[in-house]
């Protein structure tokens, strides 16, 4: 474990060196994701200037869900961004060979190879929005709220990473699976707003097929006392661990199916 931590830091050091040589790119990426989040907030603000509540949710509650949704997403974005590259070109161009010939677990190498600073932008925006909304709301769990919140963020990271890992692993069979990831991430956009504005069928898909509703909406609703803690937080953790286990199975099967590119 200590060895992996040390190795991860070495990888991270290399990443930071390359960031230093593209300083403007780094700032642009950070700004991009912060801008996206803050405009999302501005959108909610504009809408609530015109109406008192959204399907029974106040402005503070909607922003809490919105901010909360960015936390797990931001963490996942920082640490597992190389999965996008796997889905995009690593398999198609045979670049994955490089990882297989080294004496370290392939998944560790893959994730450690890339630290995505753009995710910091999402995370900072998420923290800012959540921190703005939280003091304006009542949390029935009282002193337990931060611990429950942390558990929910963990669940959210697990769900995002699992969906990404499973879909990126499809590249081992079909070579290019980035469009699947793209479509799944579009679905995640539904999760930023309260689920009760959507029809039943869509809610079902977002809860049980691509469980993005558990990345933010259900846990946030549980923290606000609108769902039970057992369902909102416990359910999110259960879904997170099951999804992570399933995605690891897909990854393993994918590794076995991998055949390098020709020539």
């Amino acid at each position, binding site marked *: 474990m200590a060895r992996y931590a040390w190795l991860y830091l070495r990888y991270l050091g290399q990443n930071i060196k390359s960031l230093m040589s*593209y300083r*403007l*790119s*780094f700032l*642009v*990426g950070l*700004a*991009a*994701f912060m*801008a*996206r989040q803050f*405009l999302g907030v*501005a*959108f909610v603000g*504009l*809408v609530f*200037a*015109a*109406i*008192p*509540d*959204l*399907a029974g949710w106040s402005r503070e509650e909607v922003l809490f869900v919105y901010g909360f949704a960015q936390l797990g997403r931001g963490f996942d974005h920082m640490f597992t961004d190389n999965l996008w590259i796997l889905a995009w070109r690593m398999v198609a161009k045979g670049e994955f060979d490089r990882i297989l010939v080294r004496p370290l677990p392939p998944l560790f190498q893959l994730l450690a190879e890339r630290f995505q600073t*753009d995710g910091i932008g999402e995370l900072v925006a998420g923290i800012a929005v959540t921190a703005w909304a939280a003091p304006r709301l009542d949390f029935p769990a009282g002193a337990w709220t931060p611990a429950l919140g942390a558990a929910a963020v963990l669940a959210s990271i697990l769900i995002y990473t699992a969906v990404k890992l499973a879909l990126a692993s499809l590249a081992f069979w079909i070579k290019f699976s980035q*469009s*699947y990831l*793209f*479509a799944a991430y*579009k*679905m995640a*956009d*539904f999760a930023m*707003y309260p689920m009760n*504005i*959507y*029809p039943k069928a*869509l809610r079902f898909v977002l809860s049980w097929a691509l469980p993005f509703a558990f990345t933010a909406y259900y846990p946030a609703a549980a923290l606000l006392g609108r769902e039970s803690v057992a369902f909102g937080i416990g359910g999110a953790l259960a879904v997170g661990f099951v999804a992570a286990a399933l995605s690891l199975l897909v990854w393993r099967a994918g590794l076995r199916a991998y055949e390098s590119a020709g020539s």
Partner: protein
Amino acid sequence: MRLAPYLRFTRNSIQTLLAYRANVLFYIFGNIVQTLVLWYLWRAIFAGSATGRVNGFTLGEMAAYLLAAVAAQSAIGGNAEDVISDEIMEGSIAVNLARPLDYRTRIFFGHLGASLYNGVVVSLPALVIALAAGASVGSSGARLAAFGVSLALSFALHFFYKFMLGLTAILTTNVWGVFNVEAVVSGFLSGALVPLAFFPEWARGVMGLLPFASMVSVPALAFAGKLSGADFARALAVQGFWVVALALFSSWAWKSLVTRVSVNGG
């Protein structure tokens, strides 16, 4: 100028996009999802209003506005910025500059192909699904015509804008980040997500000075029947102004930046 060689780029760009059919399906799906998120959100917003009107819009007008905005966005979408930035980063721009074709005209015709493709293949399914989900749109021939005229001007000014955007690849390597910021900011300022009527007075003042409203808001308002004759004429004049201004500005940017292109290797 003979058009035939350039029209090939239009055809070519459509064929390239059609060649990756599986990807196309996913992009169509992504667009449908995005349209549905917006539609359900606005439906809930209107359900929360006591009068059934929000900032002067009825739900029907809002549906018409949003669908027209989706259609306009994809029909002016094109891919000029991607093509230019790819060529700059790969270095193939060097060969393309040496060809006996005007670079900007060539990019324009490729962009036209991608826009036609986006407008038809990508946005139509999203519109059909949104209509099936209950978004009702009443429209007349006059409104459709107004939409078309205004969309043509949007297309022109948006092309010059995208052309300049592609040139940013000369200045930074993180074009992906730049395009991302741009997509978010212009999506917001153009009225593609929220009609400009929802913005506070001061913000509308600022947006009136920028070209974004001329890209999406004007055709969408025309389609939703929210512009009177005089307002529509004025909006068209502003669009025309931006076509000319951005054409001149992009020529200047092209002339001053093209000399700075540095191509690696070979």
